[in-house]
């Protein structure tokens, strides 16, 4: 059986009295896009931040290629981190830098890439995301959708092996949302990166993801293929993917 690239093993996380993750078990496989779905405020971004080490679990383990990250040496952790890229929900663009500087920063800070190569890679990425002509603008001068695309360009400019997307298309118009989804799918096919994407875009995520995991009440209540989740008979899953309010379903028979 294939060893998962990233594996959550009974991961717990509390913030004060608020238990966000209550024993998460999750497997993410190499070369696949795994979408994490679930209600707003349920802890999907918290889960994603655990993968890249921005948050540490209170209990449980996160394994990378079968090895617990907590037992890795500093050099091993650094090597793992180099494989990742992260696109933040709130974009986290550097507001004192121009669009070009934002996208070029991860390449410039490596210190080994020639200036011309940096320029060509940044311009390519900006062109692919329909961002030509705004290189000298600052994030505060951009619309929400443009900021999202700049953040995506910054996440993909290093050609990472694993990309974590935190709601990459929220706030985009339908045309650009489809373009962004198509780009993620195309990139994934071309470069074969492993993607983990937190998203509410149902059913769009079913077309670009190979695996779906659903987080509910601090636990993963489903993980499997897109077909499996669409055929699931679990009420919680069915209600969520169909956008039905559980209260209205309960109330419906008595209203008739």
């Amino acid at each position: 059986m294939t060893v998962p690239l990233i594996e959550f093993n009974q991961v717990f996380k509390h913030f004060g009295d608020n238990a966000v993750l209550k024993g998460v078990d999750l497997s993410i496989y190499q070369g696949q896009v795994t979408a994490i779905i679930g209600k707003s405020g349920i802890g999907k971004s918290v889960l994603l931040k655990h993968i890249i080490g921005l948050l540490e679990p209170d209990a449980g383990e996160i394994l990378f290629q079968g090895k617990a990250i907590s037992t890795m040496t500093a050099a091993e952790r650094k090597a793992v981190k180099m494989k990742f890229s992260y696109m933040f929900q709130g974009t986290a663009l550097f507001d004192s830098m121009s669009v070009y500087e934002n996208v070029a920063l991860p390449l410039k800070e490596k210190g080994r890439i020639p200036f011309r190569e940096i320029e060509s890679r940044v311009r390519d990425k900006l062109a692919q995301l329909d961002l030509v002509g705004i290189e000298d603008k600052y994030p505060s001068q951009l619309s929400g959708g443009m900021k999202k695309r700049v953040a995506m360009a910054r996440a993909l400019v290093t050609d990472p092996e694993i990309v974590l997307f935190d709601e990459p298309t929220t706030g985009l118009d339908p045309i650009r949302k489809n373009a962004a989804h198509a780009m993620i799918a195309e990139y994934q096919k071309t470069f074969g990166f492993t993607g983990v994407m937190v998203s509410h875009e149902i059913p769009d995520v079913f077309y670009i993801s190979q695996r779906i995991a659903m987080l509910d009440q601090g636990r993963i209540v489903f993980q499997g293929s897109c077909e499996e989740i669409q055929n699931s008979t679990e009420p919680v899953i069915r209600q969520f993917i169909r956008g039905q309010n559980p209260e209205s379903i309960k109330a419906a028979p008595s209203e008739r």
Partner: protein
Amino acid sequence: MAQSITITNMLAGLGRMAISPVQELGRVAIFFFRGAIHLFSLPLQADKIIDQVYFIGMKSVFVICLTGAFTGMVLGLQGYYTLVKFGSEGLLGAAVALSLIREMGPVLAAIMVVARAGSAMAAEIGIMRISEQIDALETMDINPVRFLFSPRLGAALISFPFLTAIFDVVGIIGGYVTGSLLLGINSGLYFSRVESSVLMEDINGGFAKSFCFAAIVATICCFQGYTTHLRKEGFGAKGVSLSTTSAVVLSCVMILVADYVLTSFLL
């Protein structure tokens, strides 16, 4: 039983109050050493240091000249009316120069830089913290302490002695304006007293102070901004405002405390 629990709680509270500042001091010290080490880690961040020298140093020159001039002029006035009582107004040049070079130049220049650049450092880094920009650096495998703090520390260490020197020179000229041009002390006498009374060790002492103040100001201001998200009293914009206020107040207090300690060693 209840009484013993109350006493235990009181003692625990007292312990927490004592331990908390020590822990905070430890965190600041670790932050400083990490920043200082990364100042020399390769590749050197010369371009970022130059940018910060422009921001901390160059952009402070005007305010330093202004405050230096008026400080020197006040010293000239006060010094003249004090010395004239003893018939020693000829010593005004020495009094103004020594006060400025040994004490007032390094302290007031540092406090002015805190007000102009230190508060900006705390606010900028604080906003970066609450808007996840520092987290973004970490995800890009960019060390935030190296990227944000080290260039500011390096730039402060370069800028502070220069700003102190400018403050001293402008202040001595300010003393000359009030002492000689307005109150009539012989200008040759004023400058000859400056030359004869100021020793190299006075100047070195002033520069040693300005180096220490640079490290204190850069460390406290950047640390306050960097730890904005850990504030329990306020989050978001409120947290940034509290960080900026703390940065300015703590820096000014620590400058004066360090000034006393350094002066007692230097004298």
